[in-house]
């Protein structure tokens, strides 16, 4: 089974966002970058499938040179090789990203392509599903369960008030939600091996897309609150405030 996992380099969840001088992007100084957390579930699922059915896992990433480190993380987890589609800046327009990835993935002959359900920076939840549409492949987004038997698969996704069960055939695309599995930590041996695994670097021409960024701003500060009191004695004052001041209960 030939599997691709699409990953992205993103600011760590603990990042405190600062706006850069252009007023349109974040100030990256001092920011720690990591593999997108949802992509770790995708990598883990790919590795589990390879253990079950043999084959190859390829980590594909659109990003700057620094994304090589992100690909190495996936290789250290156990992916076999990496492909970096080199772009100085990852566009904010998800369709532009999807087109670039689709062009790369189309030639790969993959049985299954996995993505994280969204990247925690742009928060679009779109690219994996768009790639599926561009390639004409069946796809299921935000899955919490996947079973593959030969070229048939069943996935589950959480929706408001229920769990959808979806059947499809391979080749296909799925995007991973938290809960799909427990991603493994790269072991020291994996990290050492990762350094020697092949990593292809390819150039890409990105189209202009249809989105122009006008500005990025921090959300307004919340108005100052107050400490109602200490210990159980403060409960009466709290309930009174919620009832008569905030009027929420």
């Amino acid at each position: 089974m030939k599997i691709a996992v699409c990953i992205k380099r993103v600011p760590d969840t603990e990042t405190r966002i600062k706006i850069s001088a252009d007023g349109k992007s974040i100030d990256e100084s001092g920011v720690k970058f990591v593999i997108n957390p949802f992509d770790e579930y995708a990598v883990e699922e790919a590795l589990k499938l390879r253990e079950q059915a043999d084959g190859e896992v390829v980590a594909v990433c659109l990003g700057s040179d620094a994304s090589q480190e992100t690909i190495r993380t996936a290789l250290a987890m156990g992916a076999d090789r990496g492909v970096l589609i080199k772009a100085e800046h990852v566009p904010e327009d998800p369709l532009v990203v999807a087109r670039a990835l689709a062009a790369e993935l189309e030639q790969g002959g993959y049985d299954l392509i996995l993505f994280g359900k969204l990247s925690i920076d742009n928060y679009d939840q779109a690219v994996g599903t768009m790639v599926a549409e561009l390639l004409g492949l069946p796809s299921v987004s935000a899955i919490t369960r996947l079973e593959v038997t030969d070229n048939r698969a069943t996935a589950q996704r959480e929706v408001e008030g229920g769990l959808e069960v979806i059947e499809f055939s391979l080749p296909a695309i799925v995007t991973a939600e938290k809960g799909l599995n427990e991603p493994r930590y790269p072991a020291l041996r994996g990290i050492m091996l990762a350094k020697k695994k092949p990593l292809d670097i390819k150039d890409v021409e990105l189209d202009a897309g249809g989105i122009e960024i006008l500005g990025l701003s921090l959300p307004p500060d919340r108005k100052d609150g107050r400490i109602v009191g200490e210990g159980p004695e403060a409960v009466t004052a709290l309930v009174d405030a919620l009832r008569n001041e905030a009027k929420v209960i």
Partner: protein
Amino acid sequence: MPGVLAVLEQRDGVVKRVSHEALAAARALADDLGCDVHGLLIGPPNTSGDGLGEYGADKVLASRDAELELYQASRYGQIAAEQVTAGGYDAVVLAATSLGKDLGPRIAARLGCPLASDVTSLTGTDGIVVTRPVFAGKANRRMKITTTPSVISVRTNAFAPGSHARPGVFEEISAGGEMKPSDARTVAVKAPENAALDVAEAGIVVSGGRGLKEAEHFKLVEDLAQALGGAVGASRAVVDAGWRPHSEQVGQTGKTVSPNLYVALGISGAIQHLAGMRTAKVIVAVNKDPDAPIFKVADYGVVGDLFEIVPRLIEEIKRAKEG
């Protein structure tokens, strides 16, 4: 005349409230652009389009077929994309639900047009300009859509359903072809493992963190949620520890919530957690550490031992509700 197409969501043939919100956003945009709003209803044969004029629809196009009862991604995508092309619409608006977050990208990819997801405000007075949270709400991005058409999904609770007197003329349209064997097919919707209120949809959320010390102590969180009529939420730490299901997680790798009341019990307030709940109307925090960052965003804080405070709080809330 081109217009705005609002793709509406139904359950058991009844249009959902989130789609009234999508109609409100579509109406506001259409008024700026000077055009009509058409609602597109995809669902089973008994799906009703009654009363949608009051929410702002000039026309309601219904694509109804037994095979469309459950969300079938490829067929829904095909019907919507073909309608956009046939009707020459300027924009498509839909609710950013689990369905909308899957369908929106499909429509945009089929049309080769831009997508703006989870939008919290939009105007059409100088081209289409939208604002949407990024980094799970740590920042807001304003962007202009530079090509036509476009697809816009709107965040739940960001647009209030309107009160209009539009005709809402009902028209049956083609339900498209049958599904192909190669299409992914939704075969069932199962009830969730715990039938609790979804944390993302609840008006009141009570969340617990590591301060609960043990999974069993989450009973306190559940009891307070029940007393308040709210949903249970959880911090990333306790989800990663396996105490709670990931579906309850609030924060950058979980759900973003905007309830009327958010109660944080034993949650210190890591920045990724604050990103997921800072737009709540009222925030209450109970924590033993007076310097915990959660108190910086809380409207009302109580410092102390939650095992002493919460039982008393449950008792007093029950009494207040009875009285």
